[in-house]
């Protein structure tokens, strides 16, 4: 169980950082081209807990 928790935390941190780098930084301009498909940034920030859970 101890190993499971450590592996889970490591995977969570990696997925979070990787997701931020790829989707939040690398693909930011690509997403900006289709802004009508996304929530406004202020709305996304208010729903940030869904990203953390997901």
């Amino acid at each position: 169980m101890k190993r499971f928790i450590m592996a889970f935390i490591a995977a969570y941190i990696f997925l979070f950082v990787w997701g931020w780098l790829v989707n939040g930084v690398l693909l930011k301009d690509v997403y900006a081209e289709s802004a009508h498909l996304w929530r406004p940034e202020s709305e996304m920030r208010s729903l940030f807990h869904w990203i953390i859970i997901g």
Partner: protein
Amino acid sequence: MNWKKFFFAFIAAFVFLFVFGFLWYATLMHDAHREVATLLRPEADLKSYFGWLALGQFVMAFFFTLLCARYIPGGRAGAGAMLGLLVGLVYAGPHLISFAVQPLTFKILFGWIAGAVIQFTIAGAIIGAIYKPATEHIMYVREPSR
């Protein structure tokens, strides 16, 4: 790997995923999807993208069958269903994130999550029931004590 059984399990999974996807997402959730029509392609355009849709089902069915065959080498519907349940729950993560960044409704969010969990649990049971390893490849090993 028992490729003959793998092939039958893959075909069964592909057919099931396709039919379930049509029933759940295109029929049951049709009205829910219409509420966010601007996020989705117009229905008239969908026909020209049918090849991509079929490819998506193919990829899901192939790699999920591979996952079941690789990690549940003995087969069994129950074990396949359990792996499918976990894969369906993995899908819940991206759906929650999609909800945070796209103007989706709660109805769509829960519909997509429930759909993925049900779909992969049943697909796993089907694959587990069909796929069996070639008998000459069954090997029993004693797990080392920890």
